[in-house]
Each structure stands twice: as structure tokens, then as C-alpha cells.
């Protein structure tokens, strides 16, 4: 099976913005092992593109505003106390860093690179 057909199968696996579990199971039972591997990898890639990971030391209602900001994204909230303050937003390949921990890392990196 070529890439185009796999892409079509992946597109067919979605109902609106969400993955349909029944369709996925059906497709998985019908295709060969090699194609299944390609199909799963493709699904993972699409899921990654459609997902937005928001990490923050606390989870509160303010985080819901990300859903308004990224309406077509599946938003995953993660609690990470090591970030201290602020939030880290991962949108596929783009990372938005607004954390105190990142500021500390930048300070350390600056000291390491510019100390003479």
C-alpha cells in the first residue's frame, strides 16, 4: 500500500476533529502488518499535529483559555511543579516557554557562554 492510500485511511479515521475508535479498529483488522505499522506511525504524526501540550505547575480554569486560543487542537494539560511558575506550550514542533524554570536555565546558559 502506498503513502497516499495510508493518508486516505488516516483521514477516514477521523470524525470531525476526533479520532473514531471503531473505524481505527476496523482498518487495523483489515490491513497487513507492514501497512499497519505505517498507519499507526501516520496516526501518531497526525495526533501530534492536532495536539497541544500545556504544562504548568498548577491546573486551574485559566488554562481553559488555551482551548479558545487553539480551537481545533486537542489540548493535553500536564501538571509539572518543576516549572515553578508560568507555562510551557508545545504545539507540534513549536515550543512556547513562559516558565521561571526556563528563565533560570537561560541565566545559567548565559553565564556558561559569556563568562570571561
Amino acid at each position, binding site marked *: 500500500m502506498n503513502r497516499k492510500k495510508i493518508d486516505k485511511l488516516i483521514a477516514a479515521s477521523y470524525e470531525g476533529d476526533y479520532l473514531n475508535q471503531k473505524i481505527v479498529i476496523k482498518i487495523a483488522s483489515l490491513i497487513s502488518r507492514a501497512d499497519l505499522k505505517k498507519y499507526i506511525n501516520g496516526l501518531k504524526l497526525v495526533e501530534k499535529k492536532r495536539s497541544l501540550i500545556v504544562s504548568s505547575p498548577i491546573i*486551574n480554569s485559566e488554562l481553559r483559555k*488555551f482551548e479558545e486560543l487553539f480551537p481545533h487542537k486537542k489540548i493535553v494539560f500536564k501538571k509539572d511543579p518543576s516549572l515553578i*511558575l*508560568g*507555562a510551557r506550550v508545545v504545539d507540534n514542533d513549536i515550543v512556547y516557554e*513562559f516558565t*521561571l524554570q526556563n528563565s533560570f536555565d537561560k541565566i545559567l546558559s548565559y*553565564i556558561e557562554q559569556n*563568562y570571561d
Partner: protein
Amino acid sequence: MEIVKNFGLNPVLLIAQIVNFLIILFILKKFLYKPVLDILKKRQTIIKEGLKQAEEARIKLEKVVAEEKDTLRQAQLQSRKIIEDAKEESIEITRRMNEETKKQTEKLLNDAREQIARESTGAEKRLALSTSKLAVTFLEKALKDFFSSKEQTEVLSQALKKIKKVK
């Protein structure tokens, strides 16, 4: 004639004696005097030659002695010159070696100073970095529960605004 008779001279005998004498003289001259004279002459020539050679040898010897003296004098002069040159050269070599040693020592010292400076800077940098890391770790632990929910929410709002601007 009387006197000759009284004297006892016999003219014939005298003549015979003269003839005998002449014969003997001729024989002697022919067979004895000439070879003897020849031998004497040869000997004289040999002696003269020997004397001449001896004189030449003496002159030659004197000349050789003078040459030897001259050669010795020259050799002495040359040896003195060689010794002087060697002394000068040794002084020059010593001076050069001293200069070279001084230069190398200075270079080694400079290298050592530079290395010490580099290592000091490196150590300072490592120390500063360790101190900073320690401070950051301390801050991270100290600030973990330091911020209130309100402050956290405020920072999140600011982050959202910034993302909106970037988007």
C-alpha cells in the same frame, strides 16, 4: 883533468851511471810516479768534492735549521691564533647559549603564566557555574510552593497574551 883523475872520477862510469839514472827515472816516471800522481790527484779531487759536499751539507743543514725554526715559529703563531679563535668562539657560543636559554626560560615562564591564567579563568568559570547551578537548585526548591494561585494565574494570563501576539 888531473883533478878529475885525482878525484877518482871515471867518465865512462859516470856516463853509464847517468844513463842508468835516466833509465831508472824514465821507468819510475812511467810506472810509479804517474800512477801515484794520478791516485794523489784523484784523492785530492775526492777530498775537494767531500769538502765541497760537506760545506753544502752544512749550508743545507743551517738552512733546514732556519726553516725548522721558522716552521716552529709559524706553528706556534698558528696554534696561538687557533687557541685565541677557539677561545673567542667558545665565548660566543656560551653567550649565544645563555641568550637562547634566557629566551627559552622566558618563553616557558610566559607559557606557564598563560596556562595558569587560563586554568584560573576556567576554575573561576566552573566555580561560578557551580555556584549558579546551586543557587538555581536552591531557588527551584525554595520557590516550588512559593507562588500563590493568584500569581500563577496572572503569569498564565500574561503567557496567553504573549502567545496570542506570536500567533
